[in-house]
């Protein structure tokens, strides 16, 4: 019973292969097998969004997906967004606009907002607030998060204009 399964997936542009138990959640695979602890576990009931990662470019709650379901997929975690020298515009936005206090929800919020900005590069404040429905922040009251996302959208538009598109979506090595 419950034979382990081999999964091969790309995480932050690095291909990973592992044997996993079918019941292993994607978030546990990322945190415990790959040691990518930037993805947090908050409610563990598909509500809070702290575990949000990109699966094939779309924001997904990794506590509500099995690792075996991610076989063949491309995953981006917060570690893949950028680093201290080369912040992703969304990270820059959170920095500039004080988009976090305790920071626990921040990785998931940023991944959800990267997903939003990929589909709607110039969202209205209302669209940002709607997209924030899938994440819970208990500190900020969301206002500074909204400011951070709008700041990021403006920065990304500037980068696009200057033709520096490669810098728009820096992807780290998934350390």
């Amino acid at each position, binding site marked *: 019973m419950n034979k382990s399964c081999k999964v091969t997936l790309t995480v932050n542009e690095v291909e990973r292969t592992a044997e996993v*138990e079918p*019941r292993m959640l994607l978030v546990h695979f990322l945190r415990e097998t790959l040691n990518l602890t930037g993805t947090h576990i908050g409610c563990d009931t*598909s509500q809070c969004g702290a575990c949000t990662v990109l699966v094939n470019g*779309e*924001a997904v*709650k990794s506590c509500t997906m099995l690792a075996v379901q991610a076989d063949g997929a491309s995953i981006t975690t917060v570690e893949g967004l950028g680093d201290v020298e080369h912040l992703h515009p969304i990270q820059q936005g959170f920095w500039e606009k004080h988009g976090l206090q305790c920071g626990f929800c921040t990785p998931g919020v940023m991944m959800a907002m990267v*997903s939003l900005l990929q589909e709607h590069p110039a969202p209205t404040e209302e669209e940002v607030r709607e997209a924030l429905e*899938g994440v819970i922040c208990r500190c900020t009251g969301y206002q500074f998060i909204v400011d951070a996302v709008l700041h990021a959208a403006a920065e990304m538009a500037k980068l696009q204009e200057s033709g520096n598109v490669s810098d728009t979506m820096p992807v780290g090595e998934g350390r």
Partner: protein
Amino acid sequence: MIPTTFDYVRADTVEDAIRLLQQSNGEAKLLAGGHSLIPLLKFRLTAPGTLIDISKIGELQGIRREGNRLVVGALTTHHQLHTSPLIRETMPVLADAARVIGDLQVRHRGTVGGNLAHADPAADLPGVALALDAMLEVQSEDGKELLELDGFFLGPLVTALPETSLVTSVSFLIPPSDAKSVYLKYAHPASGYAVVGVCAVVGTDPDGTINHARVGINGVGDVAYRAISVEERLLGQRPSRELIQQAAAHAADEGDIGGDLFASEEYRRHLCRVYTERALEQILLPEGTA
């Protein structure tokens, strides 16, 4: 939270999935987006011996028009429902309703087939699908058959879906081109699920007489239902505030409505009437007269 152990097997075709279901002797469950099933597994409210992953089956994908219906593959996500140009053009109410399901992340994974087969009474899709005369294409070892969605829901999380079969697609009737439609929802403030959700689709003759009326309601009862009593009172009439009030008074007639900790039966019946009235007013009474 960690589910109990299970075997995992991936089906590459629908036939594959059916064969695996037959072999499991009722011990297996189908896994598509997993956004209803995985929470149940984590709470250990269900403990299937095997999960059959159908999420990679290509023939369950896609949205196409067939005559006066849109056929939507069972694996179509809520996000795809919301962003499909074909759905936006032919039945905007479905695109709009898909947007209020769960949240961005949930809509990326949850599927139309999974949503209906799961039969959560507080889900948003069932009422909309009933108002769009949805039919389910269901495949089993005996082949394909079409089931009307009206009558498919037997109780909370219980449907008429035979054990070794799966929903392959859902088709929706394209409303008359001049029909107006809306889905109005009162969401539970914590869960976001519908305490009541009313979908109204109404078409009128050039002289204003109502010639097409569908009202689907979810959230209030054990199963989503069509408010036939409301529809019958609208048909053949001209829209007016009085007509809408009289019709909406019967919004709870077909509902199997009970109370819970959040909302009493009386309150749910009240919400049912109020949201039906608002939905009908919004689409039938020009601004200013409402």
